[in-house]
């Protein structure tokens, strides 16, 4: 009895502790990412970006956040109130919980699941349900169109995203992220799996609704897409969700392809963060370079380019692994 009680208490405390850390990290990280994105885009566009609110505009996103918290929350007329309220939470919460499997170092991981990153992909899919019902419940045509696009996009891009990682899984022989990272202590998978890396980045961009794949919220077409009718903190949750999703995708990418915590001199977690931010920078760089794809071209890209290449990559990897075992 006491043992179980202690165990439960222990568990609860751990969850609360980790939860607090994760939520804090996510918020601060998202604020930082938004600021970084604004600065990076500004540099690319020959301007200064946030400058006057704090040093180099460092407090800009904090001001934005406080303002968004204090904004009026609007219920659109004839919206489905409960679902409308639920949607932002559904977008944000799963992305948050995806943090539990990111291995910061060999032993510093909240839950080392043996299904590994599959768990992340299945969680991020839940947020698409959130996006879908956000558009549905808003009772706005633009929002509905945006959410429809989001669903189509998600279904298509889930496949290349998973397929691109299969080569690594086959090579490392495990779905567990710690195993995969540990396998990379000699060389990173980006060296052997470069096409898969490109496919992964593309599909991850699409999964995170980032430009040039931001068709569900395509500003110039659908006003603001699925979150057209959301105001204040609810809108901020979508924003937070998007940036956290980028971070998660980049962290997974860094773990899978860039050797996770491996690196000289610095401790593992720092290396992972550095690699993650490098990937985040690439994602932002891509966003501020290209025009947006059309929805049908997006599908064509997934089905006609990414998936065949990913399949081919798996085939080649399989053959190589087979012969490696055969010869050595």
């Amino acid at each position, binding site marked *: 009895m006491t043992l179980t009680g202690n165990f439960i208490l222990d568990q609860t405390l751990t969850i609360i502790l980790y939860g607090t850390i994760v939520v804090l990290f996510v918020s601060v990280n998202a604020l930082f990412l938004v600021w970084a994105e604004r600065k990076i885009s500004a540099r690319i566009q020959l301007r200064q970006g946030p400058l006057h609110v704090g040093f180099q505009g460092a407090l800009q996103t904090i001001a934005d956040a406080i303002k968004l918290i204090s904004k009026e929350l609007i219920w659109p007329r004839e919206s489905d109130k409960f679902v409308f309220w639920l949607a932002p939470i559904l977008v944000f919460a799963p992305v948050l919980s995806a943090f539990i499997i990111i291995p910061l170092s060999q032993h510093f991981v909240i839950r080392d699941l043996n299904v590994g990153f599959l768990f992340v992909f299945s969680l991020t899919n839940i947020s698409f349900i959130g996006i879908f019902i956000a558009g549905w419940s808003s009772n706005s045509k633009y929002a509905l169109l945006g959410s429809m696009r989001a669903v189509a996009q998600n279904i298509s891009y889930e496949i290349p995203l998973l397929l691109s990682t299969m080569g690594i899984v086959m090579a490392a022989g495990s779905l567990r992220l710690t195993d995969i990272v540990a396998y990379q202590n000699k060389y990173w998978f980006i060296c052997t799996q470069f096409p898969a890396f490109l496919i992964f980045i593309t599909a991850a961009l699409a999964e995170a609704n980032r430009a040039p794949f931001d068709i569900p919220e*395509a500003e*110039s*077409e659908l006003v603001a897409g699925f979150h057209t009718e959301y105001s204040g903190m609810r809108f901020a949750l979508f924003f937070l969700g998007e940036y956290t999703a980028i971070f998660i995708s980049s962290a997974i990418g860094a773990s899978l392809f860039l050797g996770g915590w491996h690196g000289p001199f610095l401790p593992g977690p720092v290396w992972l963060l550095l690699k993650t931010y490098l990937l985040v920078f690439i994602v932002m760089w891509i966003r501020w370079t290209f025009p947006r794809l059309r929805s*049908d071209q997006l599908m064509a890209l997934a089905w006609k380019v990414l998936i065949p290449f990913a399949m081919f990559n798996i085939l080649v990897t399989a053959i190589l692994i087979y012969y490696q075992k055969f010869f050595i």
Partner: protein
Amino acid sequence: MVSTLVKTNIKDWLLETIKPEEFSEKNLKVAGILFEALVPQNKIAEVAREYFSQGYFLESITAVDFSECLEIVYHFNQWGPAKRSCIKILAPKNASGAPIATAPSITSIYKAADWFEREIFDMFGVVFQGHPHLKRILLPESSTIHPLLKSFKGEPKGSDVEQCLKLLKEDAETFEITYPQSIKQQNNHYYLNMGPQHPSTHGVLRLLLHLDGERVLDAEPVIGYSHRHHEKMMEIQNYLACWPNFGRLDYVGAMSYNFGYALLIEKAMGVVPPPRVEYIRVLTTELNRIASHLLWMGTFLLDLGGFTPFFYCFDDREKVLDILEAATGERLTYDYFRFGGVDHDIPQEMVPAIKKFIPAFKERLRDYDKLVTKNVIFEHRTKGLGLLSKENALAYGVTGPALRGSGIAMDLRRDEPYSIYPELDFNIPTRTDGDVYSRYVVRVKEMEESLKIIAQIIDKIPAGDFKSGKLPKNVPKGEYYSSVESTRGSFGIYLVSDGTLNPYRIRLRTPSFSNLNAIIDMLPGCLISDVIAVLGSTDIVLPEIDR
């Protein structure tokens, strides 16, 4: 094209077959037209058909209000060397008052006539018999006035708030029943209102899209959200006071509109501006053309989702504006030209500034080429989209880069030469595909051609006066038409002068009006994303359309 089989000269045909009630030949250089003819009302369809079969496009339809009748004026012109002719019909005023007058419609022959006739109905109250859906186009549908009639003496002071409150109330009441019932019942089909406030409608255009999923079945542009009564305003003030209007008509490429008005009044008054003025005018106009195309390019790419080129384009545009601002003192709504001259002489430092700008901009153009034009996503988004066939271009009277993208090298700087353009060496870039991509390429090439023109004349600006001396007091009685190649197409001004200090009627033939009309046939079959691209490629400026 149809025009290759020219049977007889249209003038001879008119004189033989139609036997116009009045006929007079004019000087193209002064009156802007070759001849004008007054034909009976019932013959206008026949005349229009003949014009159409000979490959003429309908430049404009307008009306002039006289005390006993309304004169409805059709301007036809041809691709290639200007052969503008003016056909008129009379619509006697109805004694009972409602409708004010009637006239036959030629919408079945020229698709462009649709909007022109609706505009006349809106502004003059002329009912066109045979028009499929005659309703107001610029004013709100509940409006009761026909403002361009001379009997309209303005509204009482302070009635604007009242009127707006009325509109607000109507808007609140008609919230639910905006769409036709018949279409609402069909499954899967729905209407989407794009605009008037939409990030990509370039101002306040409302596109009523009839959609099946994301595919457009039918599109109807609803305009008039930025109607600023330019034409009425010009009627009630003197010729000089019209200048600000021409700066604000198309605020992005205002200089060519200034040019048009200056040419018109100079023609009418018989003033020849000094040579220095001509050079300054061409120089500033071409710089303004670059600025306008840059703005278009930036916003067009913004519509396609490319944020960064927008900033580069605006950076370049700022550089052009710096040069223009030093001369004109304004950044976009130029009131720079004057009758027989320009407002200020260009400053000394303008020439070196331009010389510095040309190579820098050429380098930028190469960057745009790599960043945008050759980008695979951009190519996919624009190629084979929004096709404008030559037939449709003719029927809608499309002009400017939109037409040149369809393979017709029509440019009034060549076809109806004015100022010093005949002496300059420049090409008219064309593309044959008629899609969004070709319109884009044509505009980019046009910037290069403008640079070429600037480089040619920058060293040759002669010294001299920047204003001609004494001007005649007023414009002699008569009708004048002047046309220039603006950034968006051929811009025409039709002036009816009664010899007094202010114009009797000024009609502005704005290119975007016809160009926008043509997207009705370009949009069906597109996706919503393409709607933005097609709309962007027509390069419209709403206040110029709504006037």
